């Protein structure tokens, strides 16, 4: 009798176990973060001092024992490739962290799941405008913004003081005037200290600062319905010519590299929030007295440009409801005045959370010497247009701008050539 009972109980236990294993929902979350961003920051003794994504995920799983979340981390350079290659064979993630421009392609191909109405409403009301624009594709909202970036002027206070400048330039004309005075040359003509350096090497680096100038000149990059490229406008040409002034008067040249700023070889540059750690490492205890940040010098009105990262759900996911539930728990709902995603961004990753309440809450991290200016400038930030083939278009513009920088094309010709190629692409989609 006892034996039969024990066997019965064992069978029941096994069946329950099987159910719990099979009944468990598995979510796959794809992210471009790695190392301590995912695993958390630990001190010398291995104790956790800053939470990483994994800690939040484990918290959620503890609250929902029937859910398992697997984090798949892919380096940024390979992220989109990985999605494309595995998606064609049906290997998908349930949750994606995405760069806004990648989102356009995914939405157009029906890959993303339209968020539930309550999510959409909360995004519209609780997040800063550039971030909301960032997740708006073809007029609809497709995810929850989790990171917003923009650009500002970063300068070397000491080099400026040495040349007699107490303040950074406010307008672009002031920048054009100051830069050559901050440039030092060697006898052979090469530059040993750059007054100004443009960010370069990939599409956003070159295009975003140009767009900031364009918008500050009251110009537009594309028509609102994306049917035409407007780079042939007077404002667009003026904006590029404003950049070229720096090349012509010796304030910079195409060989300038912003990566030499921590070595003290650059006086001013346009930079984004993610460079802070390198600056702190480069200047060490001279950081506070050397690094200065101010809004991008503008043409007609203060403006800067931004881009967004957001979190979304795959339309082919079998667990859409649970996925959105996790996203709400992580990035939308306040727990003690802040969102967990906001905490991850501000404390661990060192980025700017786009939720208004998070920005107000994390003053400690966001109000420092460097980041505070970027945060403050959110009010002047315009999200880059969420246009199809965004990267292809930006690459074309980047290459034309670089031609102009090198004096091989006039601003007008470069923009005209860019417009021609971009219009061809726009015609395919709009």
């Amino acid at each position, binding site marked *: 009798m006892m034996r039969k009972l024990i066997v019965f109980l064992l069978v029941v236990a096994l069946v329950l176990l099987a159910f719990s294993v099979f009944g468990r929902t598995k979510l796959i979350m794809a992210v471009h*973060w790695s*190392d301590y961003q995912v695993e958390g920051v630990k001190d010398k003794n291995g104790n956790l001092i800053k939470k990483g994504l994994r800690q939040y995920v484990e918290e959620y799983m503890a609250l929902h024992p029937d859910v398992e979340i697997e984090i798949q*981390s892919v*380096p940024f350079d390979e992220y989109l490739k990985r999605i494309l290659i*595995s998606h064609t064979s049906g290997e998908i993630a349930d949750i994606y962290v995405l760069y806004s421009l990648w989102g356009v392609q995914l939405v157009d191909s029906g890959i993303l799941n339209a968020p539930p109405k309550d999510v959409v409403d909360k995004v519209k009301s609780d997040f800063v405008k550039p971030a909301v624009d960032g997740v708006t594709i073809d007029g609809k909202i497709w995810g929850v913004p989790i990171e917003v970036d923009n650009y500002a002027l970063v300068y070397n206070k000491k080099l400026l003081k040495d040349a007699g400048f107490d303040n950074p330039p406010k307008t672009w004309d002031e920048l054009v005037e100051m830069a050559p005075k901050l440039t030092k040359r060697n006898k052979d003509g090469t530059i040993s200290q750059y007054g100004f350096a443009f960010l370069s090497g990939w599409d956003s680096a070159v295009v975003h600062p140009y767009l900031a100038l364009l918008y500050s000149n009251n110009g537009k990059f594309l028509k609102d319905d994306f049917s035409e490229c407007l780079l042939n406008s007077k404002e667009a040409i003026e904006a590029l010519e404003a950049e070229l002034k720096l090349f012509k008067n010796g304030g910079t040249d195409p060989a300038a590299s912003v990566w030499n700023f921590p070595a003290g070889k650059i006086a001013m540059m346009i930079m*984004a929030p*993610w*460079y802070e*750690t390198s600056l702190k490492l480069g200047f060490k205890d001279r950081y506070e007295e050397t690094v200065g940040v101010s809004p991008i010098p503008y043409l007609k009105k203060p403006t800067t440009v931004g881009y967004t990262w957001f979190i979304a759900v795959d339309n082919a996911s079998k667990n859409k409801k649970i996925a959105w539930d996790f996203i709400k728990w992580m990035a939308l709902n306040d727990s003690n005045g802040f969102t967990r995603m906001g905490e991850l961004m501000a404390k661990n990753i060192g980025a700017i959370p786009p939720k208004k309440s998070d920005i107000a809450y994390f003053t400690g991290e966001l109000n420092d010497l460097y980041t505070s200016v970027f945060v403050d400038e959110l009010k002047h930030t315009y999200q880059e247009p969420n246009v199809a083939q965004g990267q292809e278009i930006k690459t074309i513009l980047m290459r034309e701008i670089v031609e102009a920088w090198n004096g091989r094309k006039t601003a007008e010709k470069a923009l005209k050539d860019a417009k021609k190629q971009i219009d061809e692409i726009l015609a395919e989609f709009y």
Partner: protein
Amino acid sequence: MSKNKKSRKLLEFIRYFVIIFGAFWMILPFFWLFSASLMTPEELLADIPKWLPAKPQWSNYVEVLKRIPLLIYYKNSFIVAGTVTLLVIITSSLAGYSFAKLRFPGRKLLFRFVLSTMMFPVFIFLIPVYYLMKLFGWLDNYLSLIVPFAVSGYGIFLMRQFVMTIPDELLDSARMDGASEFRIYISIILPLLKPVIATLAILTFIGQWNSFLWPLIVTTSAQHLMTLPVGISRLSLAFSTTETQHLILAALVYQVIPMVVVFLYLQRYYIKGFVLSGFGNI
């Protein structure tokens, strides 16, 4: 007599001068890697590369072990690179012997076909081969890391060229003694190919050891299979690599050392080939 001796000494001097001068330029980045892996992140930010660390940061090597499961990566990389190398040597030498010494209809065409497999850019294969891996259910398995590389046109071509240098007479006399082709392959061909096999082994092993994109795509969902390059990439942070650069460099040293060991170990096979003098007139 002395004039000859003088000119020979001069030639010898020039010879070693050229060798050493070239060697210096060859080893510079390799040396820098080891040196830089002992630096602090600040030292690595200098615009002109520093050649020696102010104080060697041996802790970098310890820190890497704390952050990533290096032993698992080593195991996976060894299994994958080792198996692929073995498979490539077997298939290449068999096919190389076939193309070089055996006559059959279609030989020329098949050889051209094998050559053409090397002529497509790799990215074209990513999507279809991934699909095959999914179809066979190999995505969770070493098989997806090994099988797609088991045969190498490069290896077949290399083996063929070297097998061709083996005199036919040697093989014919073995055939007349009744040896099967397979016997000839094992007893005559393989032993004579020692330096080539070592070369192909080194190059294949290194190619697989350093392979990044394919293993990344395949092991993102099978993290227990990650190889060294994929594992090390988890140390790089998208826009702030400067923070972990010193760790990445130390991790790269961990990655480089086994290749050096394999290379040095296989040098024993670079011996003079067969001596012809025992085989009469040719």
